[in-house]
């Protein structure tokens, strides 16, 4: 019923032909006599059919016809036009005799159409006997097949997916381009990305033990800092959450070193050894800090811990409003004012399913 639901070229049939099938509704393009010689370049294969479709052929014929007409009639003078304008249309006699017509009338030459489409009585017959709404197509389906707009679902054809391109997006206040269009449609890379989400510490689970009800398991959470400044992070456990799992965060306040592109190539070489007790965190690598969290699941089922994360960083004070983005990055004034900015957010981290204790 929905030929455009999703198609996958399937294997060759007995005749060495390919066709489309929908895995959802079992629709098969052979039912509308659509088959392909090879599984690639379907559009090109359909093009031939498209070019011989009656409306395309008729359109081409009309275009030629009108072109001839427009070329051959240089004499549509303004006076003639204005005569109609002034309402003296009665003077325009319609020429009935062919000879007269050819001399004076600037009506179009006789047009010979390229095709003839028979009247479609199928719609009427179908409608008169319809008992169910699903026997006719929806307006949306018809608008996908504008040249025929059939009432019967059997005559629908698969629809090509409309190309969606990325558009360039500019920040409304700072006019900074946030997203640039990409030439290649299949590339998913965003050129410049100033999404707020990427500016907050990224939390990943570095190691995890299986969750067992009423049994303490230790989880290592790694916080990475995407910013170029050092940040101070404090983590709190949302203690009103239900079900109430036992949560103990070993180091609630810690710092994370700034992000530096160079470090991407030598991860883990800088920082303290894991489990170093002197600085109250579990591990500290380049721009990430790991902390240990002990979780005692209260009941079986998914363990999800809400965390309230506050982070503070030092940032140059934004100059007065109306400033332009400094592309070169050079600052003329030497005394840049720094201010502390604090951002806080809630997050819920899922640690998987807790299994019941062996005893119970």
């Amino acid at each position, binding site marked *: 019923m929905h030929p455009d639901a999703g198609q996958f070229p399937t294997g060759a049939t007995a005749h060495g032909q390919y066709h489309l099938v929908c895995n959802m509704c079992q629709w098969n393009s052979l039912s509308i006599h659509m088959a392909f010689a090879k599984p690639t370049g379907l559009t090109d294969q359909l093009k031939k*059919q498209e070019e011989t479709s009656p409306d395309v052929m008729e359109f081409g014929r*009309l275009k030629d016809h009108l072109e001839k007409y427009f070329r051959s009639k240089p004499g549509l003078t303004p006076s003639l036009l204005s005569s109609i304008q002034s309402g003296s249309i009665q003077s325009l006699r319609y020429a009935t005799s062919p000879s007269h017509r050819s001399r004076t009338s600037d009506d179009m030459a006789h047009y010979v159409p390229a095709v003839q489409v*028979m009247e479609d009585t199928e719609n009427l017959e179908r409608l008169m*006997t319809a008992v169910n709404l699903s026997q006719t197509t929806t307006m949306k389906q018809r608008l996908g097949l504008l040249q025929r707009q059939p009432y019967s679902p059997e005559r629908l054809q698969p629809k090509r997916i409309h190309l969606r391109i990325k558009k360039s997006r500019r920040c409304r206040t700072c006019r900074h381009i946030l997203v640039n269009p990409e030439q290649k449609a299949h590339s998913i890379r965003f050129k410049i990305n100033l999404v707020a989400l990427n500016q907050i510490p990224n939390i990943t689970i570095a190691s995890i033990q299986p969750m067992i009800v009423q049994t303490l398991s230790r989880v290592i959470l790694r916080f990475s800092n995407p910013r170029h400044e050092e940040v101070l992070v404090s983590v709190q456990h949302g203690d009103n959450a239900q079900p109430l799992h036992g949560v103990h965060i070993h180091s609630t306040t810690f710092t994370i070193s700034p992000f530096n592109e160079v470090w991407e190539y030598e991860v883990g070489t800088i920082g303290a050894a894991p489990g170093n007790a002197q600085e109250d965190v579990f591990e500290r690598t380049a721009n990430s800090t790991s902390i240990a969290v002990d979780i005692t699941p209260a009941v079986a089922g998914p363990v999800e811990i809400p965390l309230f994360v506050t982070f503070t960083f030092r940032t140059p004070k934004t100059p007065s409003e109306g400033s332009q983005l400094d592309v070169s990055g050079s600052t003329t004034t030497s005394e840049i004012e720094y201010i502390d900015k604090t951002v806080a957010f809630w997050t819920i981290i899922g640690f998987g399913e807790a299994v019941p204790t062996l005893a119970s």
Partner: protein
Amino acid sequence: MALPIAKIRDLSFKTSIYGIEERIVLDIGSCYIKCGLSGESRPRHFISMFLSEEALDDYLGLRPIHQQHFGHECNEFCNERASRTCRGANPLEYAELYELDMLGKDNRGRTEEQRMKILEERLSEYLYDVYFKHLLTDPKQRKVIVCESPLAPIALKQTIAKVLFEKLQAPSVSFTNSHLLALLTTGTTTGLVIDCGHLETSVLPIYASRPMTPFIRTTPRAGKFLSTHLKKLLQEKCPISLADNPTDLRIIPEGMLTSAFLETIKTRLLFASPLIISARDNIGEDEMNNNYRDLSTSTEVHVEVWLEEEQARGILAIPGWIRERATECLFNGDEDAQSVTDTILEAVLKSPSDLRRPLLSSMLLIGGTAQLPNFQNRLVQEIKRSLQTNPRWKRLAGLAEAIRFLDDLTDEDRASLSSAVGFAGGRSGSSNMMELEPPSEPATTTNTRDKDRKGSKEKKVYQSSGKVFMPNCRSWIGGSLIGALKASGPEILRENFNGTVPDWTTAGFLTSPTTPAHDTAASTSVVASALAISY
């Protein structure tokens, strides 16, 4: 890597979104916007004015209403400004882009100024979508052809021009008469074009590509009128039975009969009855409905609906007579709104007497409401009946035998068709006429007689192309043709745009801010003047 020459040539003739030669053709209706590139035989996109895309699907109250923004799903294309203007509106209600009367307050109490503002916001949102979401093209590089109805409010034209020039920076816009454009798709330039759309039905005689606007006649009996009538019929005649308890009948709740609901019924279940039942004088509406019911042969359609109050599923049974007789309201007229038939005949009668026959013998029906199955055949019957029975059209009665629609087969075609059938005697192999659909043929060529013509020696000459284009696309296709030939109505250039647009109603007083395309070939300006007849 060198392409073969033939291939390069092939590419150069194809429409491409990368070239800037082809123009943008827009047909902006009150319910649907048709958009695409000139030189193509059909619009690329057909955008509905429903507040939600879903409404176009099979919405009949079963699905939950998604909270959606205006006009589209809330995705990356979301435009918040526009949604604010229509906040609170039901996503299943049509929000017509414009109404015929844009002056004064509307029924929601908005002033003219507010309405124009809303129109501008919405139009710019839709046109942004047209360019950046649907056609994926740069508005600054392409000229625009807008199909305009001759009676569209000037304020609407001005707003369209304003949005195109000021917001989208289009280089030039030309408004071209939609009736004339539709007529061009039949290859002729004389005819009576009947546009049966949503807000109104307008009948415009055109002679030798000159729209004779003084003789235009309109009636509100069109899509919207039909919706209202259908709503009344459903409310009065179709109770809903609960799915669990079929004897428990309810009246259709008012809230269920949204525009989307009515549109679904209209586009999927309605048709024009092939049978005319003459109404005797002084016959009541109820009695007439009984007549309709007794003479109906169509089946009843059961539609599942969701009853919000009862929280239960219900079955709405739409009887066959409503399905075939709802359209009757378009053929029956009264003092306030005359019937489509009378409107057509009045336009003919107003026309110069020597044009009446050619006009009646080359009528063309366009517009969305004209898509109702059997509508056109019924209209022919109605016109013939009116000519015979109504004393008002006595002067036209002699023309009854001349009545023909341009996309109907001519007598010659019919004759050749019947002789061919008789000759071939069921064998359709060599005589390429009236062949049955070979099962191996793809369905794209259903109902055409043009197949394998190349193979056959003798070329059949047709008189009429038949219903090769759908009525709701004809105006757009005409615009596409004109655009492909580098012709159009009078062009307004962005540099010259001062807020006003040329219009036939103001043609005499306006010192034209437009420059017809004089720089290009001579043929273009001729065409422009031919098309610009009404200005």
